[in-house]
């Protein structure tokens, strides 16, 4: 039997799909669009095999997004090449039933047999929700079962209902899209159903109501958000110093050990000047990345993030962005790629393009090593009032990224001449203590991603850069460091002509070339370049000390300004091409971001020189 899973976004549909099918699943795209199609198989106790399709989440069968349109078309058998399902399993979140029941009433009109799976029933029961499943089943005329998709055996109710085949097709009506009047009628019907099923929700506690009054207040809420973000960036610098010192010492010891144990030669230079100097310069930033993500995970798990989305909706609306752009832009703080992919939930194509175009301006985690290196090298570690100056500068860089994104979005929307209005609808979950297991899993994943990049593309780039910076060997009688005669040295000096007006030297120019693939590679590249330039400090891992001696403050600030804007990530441009269906938008994005980076670096460099009286 062909079974389709349908439900609201985030109701646990995909978890139920994974619970039922295990690893027997196939992931592809629907033809011609970038909406993901997941199909799997599972067997019931009688050994009968069923095909299971996980359809994109939707709020209504009157679609407002591409995802919702695909789900409606598959359910109606309108999508060519996609056979119509024979049964629907409608997944509802037990802690938020009313919207799911409205969807179930719409789904009845599809004319397909249906099972209602009340998911997360364990959490609902623990929190004091009550529901008479038999009564709800009687009222709806379909089987209603409980599921806990995250537990082994948690989907057994669905399998048993499938075996019993106790459903009747109640939707003899002809399909028509729900009208506004239908929605009002459906809301009344949902209220009646919940009453008949003796549904009871736990009363909202006074403490939660008081917390919401403060955190959602137009002024105090924004102040609270600013204080929370401030504390996060302070912690990134204050808490990370001890583990960073330990990594630094470990890298330095390893370099010294190899230097004493290995004979002079190309392999020793590759390991010490290339691999250890390059990778050591990047690995040192792992503690700061983990501290930042620990805070993001805690805020996400505690239920605060949707409230931040609500607070910022007015600000987003003032520059013409949809409230739905908040989640993609927030995701872009980790990496612009999932952020750009998350824009699929934005109904208006103009809003979607505007959001995609500004997503790379949000400060992704790959920028953190560059920012942290330059801040540690050039910004004094002292207090300003109750705040640490280095944390303040990091906060200012993140803030500049956000403000730039809003300004660019405003310009794009003015240029498009569009004035679309979209209301933001989101559920505000209850506050809860963050789950330590979720936190640990999230930090483990983040560590794995970082180390995979260090051991993969960054290591490969550093080895290549070592080769380009070592060969050809300097001519006999040469007095300058060998790197100046190498391929990389020549390339760096050629590029330095273009980059000299913004204060960049040829070593920075060399680092920016491999840094085009991904931002953090530039830090490893600088480590290798300075190690080969004969800097002992860079060899022993203290790259920050080297650059603070070699660069002026104006150069460092100009490089920071460059990194706020420069689109140095090929994977992001490739995803923009895939999501927008052509090269036009990624090319426009690269052009405007490089132009902004150059102008910002130029202005920063010149202003700093003027202020310093040079």
């Amino acid at each position: 039997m062909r079974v389709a899973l349908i439900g609201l976004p985030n109701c646990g549909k995909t978890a139920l799909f994974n619970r039922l099918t295990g690893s027997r699943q196939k992931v592809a795209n629907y033809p011609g669009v970038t909406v993901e199609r997941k199909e799997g198989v599972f067997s019931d106790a009688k050994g009968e095999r069923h095909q299971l399709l996980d359809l994109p989440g939707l709020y209504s069968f009157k679609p407002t997004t591409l995802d919702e349109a695909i789900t409606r078309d598959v359910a109606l058998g309108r999508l060519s090449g996609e056979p119509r399902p024979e049964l629907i399993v409608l997944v509802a979140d037990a802690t938020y039933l009313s919207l799911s029941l409205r969807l179930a009433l719409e789904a009845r009109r599809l004319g397909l047999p249906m099972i209602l799976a009340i998911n997360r029933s364990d959490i609902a029961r623990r929190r004091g929700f009550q529901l008479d499943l038999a009564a709800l089943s009687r009222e709806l005329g379909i089987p209603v079962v409980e599921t806990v998709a995250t537990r082994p055996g948690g989907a057994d109710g669905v399998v048993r209902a499938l075996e019993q085949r106790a459903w009747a097709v109640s939707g003899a009506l002809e399909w028509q899209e729900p009208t506004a009047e239908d929605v009002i009628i459906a809301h009344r019907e949902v209220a009646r159903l919940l009453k008949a099923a003796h549904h009871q929700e736990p009363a909202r506690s006074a403490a939660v109501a008081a917390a919401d009054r403060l955190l959602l207040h137009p002024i105090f809420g924004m102040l609270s958000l600013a204080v929370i973000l401030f504390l996060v960036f302070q912690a990134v610098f204050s808490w990370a110093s001890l583990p960073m010192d330990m990594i630094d010492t470990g890298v330095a010891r390893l370099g010294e050990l190899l230097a004493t144990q290995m004979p002079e030669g190309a392999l020793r230079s590759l390991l010490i000047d290339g691999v250890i100097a390059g990778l050591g310069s990047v690995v040192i930033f792992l503690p700061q990345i983990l501290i930042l993500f620990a805070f993001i995970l805690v805020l996400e798990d505690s239920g605060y993030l949707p409230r931040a989305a609500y607070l910022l909706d007015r600000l987003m609306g003032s520059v013409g962005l949809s409230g739905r752009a908040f989640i993609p832009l927030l995701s872009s703080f980790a990496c612009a790629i999932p952020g750009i992919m998350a824009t699929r939930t934005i109904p208006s194509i103009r809003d979607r393009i505007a959001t995609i175009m500004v997503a790379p301006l949000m400060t992704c985690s790959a920028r953190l090593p560059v920012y942290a290196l330059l801040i540690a090298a050039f910004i004094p570690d002292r207090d300003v009032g109750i705040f640490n100056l280095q944390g303040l500068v990091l906060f200012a860089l993140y803030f500049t990224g956000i403000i730039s994104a809003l300004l660019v979005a405003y310009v794009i929307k003015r240029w498009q001449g569009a004035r679309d209005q979209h209301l933001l609808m989101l559920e505000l979950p209850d506050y809860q203590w963050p789950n330590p297991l979720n936190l640990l899993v999230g930090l483990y994943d983040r560590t794995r991603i970082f180390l995979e990049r260090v051991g993969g593309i960054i290591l490969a780039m550093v080895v290549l850069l070592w080769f380009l910076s070592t060969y050809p060997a300097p001519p006999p009688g040469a007095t300058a460091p060998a790197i100046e005669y190498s391929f990389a040295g020549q390339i760096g000096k050629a590029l330095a002509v273009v980059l000299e007006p913004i204060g960049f030297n040829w070593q920075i120019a060399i680092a920016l070339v491999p840094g085009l693939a991904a931002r953090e590679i530039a830090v490893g590249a600088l480590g290798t370049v300075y190690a080969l330039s004969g800097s002992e400090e860079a060899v022993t891992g203290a790259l920050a000390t080297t650059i603070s001696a070699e660069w002026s403050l104006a150069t460092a600030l100009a490089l920071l300004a460059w990194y706020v804007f420069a689109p140095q990530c090929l994977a992001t441009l490739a995803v923009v091409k895939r999501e927008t269906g052509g090269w036009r938008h990624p090319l426009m994005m690269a052009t405007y971001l490089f132009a902004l980076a150059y102008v910002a670096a130029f202005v920063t460099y010149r202003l700093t020189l003027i202020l310093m009286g040079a």
Partner: protein
Amino acid sequence: MWQNLIVIVAVSVAALYVFWSLAPKSVRRWAATRWGGRMAWLARSADSSGCADCAVRNNTRSSR
């Protein structure tokens, strides 16, 4: 001598890795079609987007 050999192998592998990671998907698919039968990892990595973050987010969402 053997040290130089290791360096040549390391630099060649690094160059191939960088080329494979940055090559357009069409090139990777072409290579996977041609040699993927004998090298399963080649076929598997042809479709990867290079975005480790996306894979983690999918896993996190699935386990919720």
